[in-house]
């Protein structure tokens, strides 16, 4: 079996058997969707749940990826990382294992959101739209989990990582196009939101709903993804403890 899959399976088993991680992964996105999509008294667009679902999907991948960086922190703190580094498989297979498991977790959560969104009255995606959505979420997940896992090599411990996580995730979410369209944003926010990678993913999924393939967004995300994964592989190859 490929070492990447071995590492990935290990974390997946731990996730599923961990129970609370799994329950939280199921409840959190649903809660977001209900509170933001239905309960918020603002309406930037006609069918707000249609509008906000891509935002919540991308946000779920964001938070799943950032939380996923904690997997490596724990491995480091508990001594697993040292054991893995002394094993024969190339060290980047540890990275790819984490990317895979974190992205799978994010995709599972996204799927729950989609199901909830459709139940709550969002327009049901066509198979092509679904495929496109998953494709964008996947690239976005790989990009973020590679970044988070690499940051996790350099951050001291769990507390520090949680601090970095909190510092990064909220600004990224609120400076994106997740909650409101560009034309109702304050003037200072719009350019920032345009440069935010989270917006690339969200806009991509929204454009898919209009029946267009969002080549720009996919292109941007893919190039970013290649760069970040390249840097991450480099970091993992030269890691010393």
């Amino acid at each position, binding site marked *: 079996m490929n070492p990447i899959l071995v590492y990935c399976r290990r974390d997946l*088993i731990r996730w599923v058997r961990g129970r609370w991680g799994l329950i939280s992964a199921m409840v959190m996105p649903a809660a977001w969707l209900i509170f933001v999509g239905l309960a918020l008294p603002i309406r930037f667009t006609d069918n707000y749940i249609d509008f906000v679902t891509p935002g919540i999907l991308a946000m779920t991948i964001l938070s799943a990826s950032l939380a996923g960086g904690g997997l490596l922190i724990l491995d480091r703190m508990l001594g697993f990382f040292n054991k893995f*580094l002394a094993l024969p498989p190339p060290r980047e297979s540890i990275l790819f294992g984490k990317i895979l498991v974190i992205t799978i977790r994010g995709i599972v959560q996204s799927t729950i959101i989609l199901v909830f969104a459709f139940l709550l009255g969002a327009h049901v995606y066509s198979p092509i739209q679904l495929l496109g959505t998953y494709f964008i979420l996947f690239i976005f997940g790989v990009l973020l989990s590679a970044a988070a896992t690499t940051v996790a090599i350099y951050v001291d411990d769990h507390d520090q990582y949680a601090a970095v996580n909190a510092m990064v995730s909220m600004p990224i979410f609120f400076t994106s196009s997740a909650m409101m369209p560009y034309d109702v944003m304050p003037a200072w926010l719009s350019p920032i939101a345009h440069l935010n990678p989270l917006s690339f993913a969200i806009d991509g999924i929204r454009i898919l709903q209009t029946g267009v393939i969002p080549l720009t967004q996919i292109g941007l995300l893919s190039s970013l993804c290649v760069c970040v994964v390249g840097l991450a592989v480099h970091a993992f190859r030269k890691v010393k403890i």
Partner: protein
Amino acid sequence: MKEVNHDSLPYQDHKIVTHNLTKRFGNLCAVDQLSLSVGNEIFGLVGPNGSGKTTTVLMLTTLLGATSGDATVCGYDVQTHPRKVRESISYVPQDMAVDVRLSGRENVMMFAELYGVSDPREKTEEALRVLELSDRADELAKVYSGGMRRRLELAQALVHNPQVLFLDEPTVGLDVAARKKIWEHIRTLRNAGSAIFVTTHYLDEAEKYCDRVAIIDRGVLKAIDTPKNLKSLISQDIISVSITGTFHEIIVPGVRFAFVEDENLIFYAEHGESALPLIKDALSESGICVDTMSLRRPSLDDVFLHLVGTVEDSTPFKLSTFRNMMGRRG
């Protein structure tokens, strides 16, 4: 390759060879010019906490780069051929890292697959059987005791028949029975032809189970030999005396004051039994009241204290005995 002359093994039998291996962290020299070689044996690296034991293991297992000097494991340079080294070794760190949400079997199987052994399932069963974990292999490692977890780690390490096994403090935190069992397993491995590189600060264990012991202090190798030869560094009997009053140097033929340990005076004597009354008399004459006296054969503890000492012992007097000792040996 530069020659290393610490023992008489033919070169090709050396699984680990280091030459002037050095690691600095800023100003701190964690390992200073370490040269040693290890064959198919249980090799114990002992030293106080922070003496550079773990740093040495990390360098030999390719996890940490050396500042200078070189090291080969199974003939491969750890700096230039790390992948080859990793294929030949197993490393069990101090942390006792087993996945508690995986069963014993899953834990071992994972390593079998990561090592890329050709028949992971059979090798897993064999490793579990050797470490006497087969009965409980399906239970989650969460319910394993400390000793079982350590054995599970050994099973993970053994699953690919490593040529060299690195164990960092393998018995720390275990009860006496579990420790004995771990060491018995380590012996079995040695007999099967593996080189075992162990760090420990349990000197009694090193004395009992290691074929050779290296004593390291503040990164510097102080001595390297079999426990028996190390003990003969202190060729004499050891007499421990507790007194009331201030100690002044006494002159007794065949007896030498060594150092103070836990408020006891330690003397080395060529003939312990006959020296006891002489020391008592000499002390009494100089007005010192002797409370208790005891006589024992030297243990590795004594050698260790002699070579490494404690912070308080680094007095000029201690240094001179240390020099005498090394001088006599050379």
